[in-house]
């Protein structure tokens, strides 16, 4: 087991290196950072001097080696645009994205799982059909359209919720959280909903499909034949069998949440990693882009590792059941 983890960790480092390498080698094609850092009256000589100072004229491998060397020392470098230490920027932005992603995921679970169960158990009901169609329409609308619609409906027309930003934040050590103020929660609702909608639908449909499948297995049929109460069957047998693959899928979906959060953060001006990344592209802030990608790679690697461990733990049991 320990050997497995170790092997995976080593592979993970390679993954992060590969991501950094790919991204780094292509950064010079996303635009000119110098023109974003200076005004129109800056002479070509000054621009060239700046380019030289920032090491942009160095050969690719030298830049890449410097970057990886620095990261290994914990030095994430400085933003081209604001000259802030990128480590600090991460500490500020990461909690925002993590909180948003987690709440979105929770919404998708809290609403999605019961909805999935309900629609599985009442496949012909009107409620079920409308839930299915409704959510289907929901995920067919691009995320940014949903976001803006929600903003205008709940923020402008009804005036119930804030239209942008994170609301009141509280600092716990370095973690800047918006979960401890009412304003923070109010600001969280719409973005989390927008982000969670896709996950919600996915979870719901997964649970539904799994549950419907499980309901028809011999296992359940025998339980019915044995005279086990219907209710007991529903909630104990069917549900537990359903959750196993669903849990693993959810772990993978967390990655999707991070990816989709880019658009959501952009629409809601949510000061998280996604918005940071978008802005760094806009301003060709190469150090920030590099660090972002490495951090995201790290996250994916971590999540995948956890999911694989989970699977590893669950797998033997599944195999045993299958042979019965």
């Amino acid at each position: 087991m320990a050997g497995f983890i170790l092997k995976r960790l080593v592979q993970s480092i390679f993954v992060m290196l590969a991501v950094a390498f790919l991204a780094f080698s292509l950064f010079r094609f996303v635009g000119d950072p110098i023109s974003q850092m200076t005004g129109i009256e800056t002479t070509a000589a000054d621009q060239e001097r700046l380019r030289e100072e920032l090491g942009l004229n160095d050969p690719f491998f030298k830049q890449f080696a410097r970057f990886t060397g620095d990261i290994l020392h914990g030095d994430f470098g400085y933003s081209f645009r604001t000259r802030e230490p990128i480590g600090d920027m991460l500490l500020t932005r990461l909690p925002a994205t993590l909180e948003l992603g987690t709440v979105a995921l929770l919404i998708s679970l809290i609403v999605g799982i019961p909805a999935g169960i309900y629609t599985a158990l009442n496949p012909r009901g009107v409620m079920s059909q409308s839930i299915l169609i409704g959510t289907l329409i929901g995920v067919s609308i691009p995320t940014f359209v949903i976001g803006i619609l929600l903003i205008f409906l709940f923020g402008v027309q009804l005036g119930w919720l804030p239209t942008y930003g994170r609301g009141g934040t509280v600092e716990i050590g370095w973690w800047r959280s918006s979960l401890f103020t009412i304003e923070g929660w109010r600001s969280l609702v719409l973005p989390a909903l927008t982000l969670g909608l896709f996950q919600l639908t996915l979870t719901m449909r997964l649970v539904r499909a799994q549950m419907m499948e499980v309901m028809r297995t011999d296992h359940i049929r025998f339980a019915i034949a044995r005279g086990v109460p219907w209710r007991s069957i529903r909630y104990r047998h069917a549900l537990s069998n359903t959750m196993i693959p669903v849990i693993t899928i959810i772990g993978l979906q967390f990655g999707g949440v991070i990816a989709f959060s880019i658009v959501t953060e952009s629409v809601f001006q949510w000061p998280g990693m996604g918005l940071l990344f978008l802005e760094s592209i806009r301003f060709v802030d190469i150090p920030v882009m590099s660090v972002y990608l490495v951090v995201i790679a790290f996250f994916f690697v971590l999540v995948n590792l956890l999911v694989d461990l989970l699977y590893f733990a669950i797998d033997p049991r599944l195999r045993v059941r299958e042979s019965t």
Partner: protein
Amino acid sequence: MFRTKLPTAALAVSATMLCALPAKAETFRWAGTTDPQTMDPHAVNATPELSFLNNVYEGLVRRGPDMGVQPSLATSWEALPDGAGWRFSLRENVTFHDGAAFNADDVVFSYERAISEPSDVKSWFANVAEVVKVDDNTVDFLTSAPDPLFPGSIANFMILDAEWAAANDAEVPARDAENHATRNTNGTGPFVLTSRDPGIRTDLSPNETWWDTAEHKLSEAIFTPIGNPATGLAALLSGEIDFISPIPLQDVEQVESREGFKVLTGLETRVIMLGFGHDHDVLRYSDETTDENPFLDVRVRQAVAQAIDVDTINRVIMRGAAEPASQLLPEGLSGFSDEHAMRPEFDPEAAQALLAEAGYPDGFSFGLMCPNDRYINDEAVCRAVASMLARIGVEANVNAMPVRGYWDELRADNFDMYLLGWSPGTFDAEHPIRFLTHTPTERLGTWNFGGYSSPRIDEMLAPIQQELDPEARQAMLEEVAGILQNDVAYVPLYTEPLIWAMQENIDVVQRPDNFFMLRWVDVN
């Protein structure tokens, strides 16, 4: 139950004080699409930074609501004999936000800081040979050549406290890592920086010891960047912010029709124009014409100018908010040529005739470079231009791209025609001549991507810069404007509008340089 009896006198005093208290605290929340990258006034020579910092820092002179040059930290200035430079008399009894006194040492220090290597505002002092402290309240700026417009040209030169900078290791602007001046300020201006969260939020509060009288009634000002225009609009309409600039043109009508909001539409000093590849032998993006460059023929350029219906572009795309332009700078700015204030007339038939005369009766295709996120509706304008040119047989392949890569492409000559917007930093006609029409050299013509070259204009630039007699100067500028028009060096299209939206109870002053001065904000 014991109650402390307040002495009656104390009660009376507090009652009086209550009456004398100023009007209730006004927090002003405003937003824009771009957060200033730094709080260092010498680090970046661009509008988002200079506009914001003009609320915190001040210079020797400043510009008033009508762009007129006013005294600021200098009470008066006079030209030194023989065009040797300018002498500034400094204002007395001015303190920085930290209480330190303002004097000539701070001016000299700030000058040295502004011309240091990492500074981005060096170009303002290109003509300055030396700055001399005459006494504690007088400073001389000695110029290499006579510079009649010098005082106005340094309206954005901001002065820091020398001791503060030294004590905080901020003697030059930050290069790669931030220094104290990147997130902290110490100026003399009407507002003090109280908190700075880059990219998220910046807080200002009034400077109680400001030397001038505050016209605003603000107790606090909070700036947040909102990148998405729809989100920004929503924030304004929901009342979460009081002011936002800009809002998209197509939303102006909606906002104005709503109760409680208003839109201030004006003109910026930016002219949007089309440029040609004057030094390109061949077209680079043509589907069929690869062995010559039709745009080298002035008749073809003239045809382009006459094929574009700027009035319709203004009406449909700019919703009537723009103003057709005839020159490289907008009307009303110093040096504008009244003689040449007419655009070429929109006449597609004449354009087609010119094309035929030049030898292109069937037209040709070419590449039009365009940014898609820099100017208002820039891409839409390019497409409209392309559509109009298609009508006379000239097919444009529009390549619209984000501005972050745009200048590189232009510098690499990857265009046949391009869109450019120019705002003269000195609000004077010499500025675009220097940057856009002079033959490209190390220091001049640096934005003349097409390589337009007129020996006459080149030789007139220095005399224009040094001429002290306004009439003689204007005569030279008229001549230059004439040359540019006859040569169709550029095709000026229109002056870009400024669109500011706010709550109805807010009054602001809109300056054509798009600088937002908090000190003129009135909340009713």
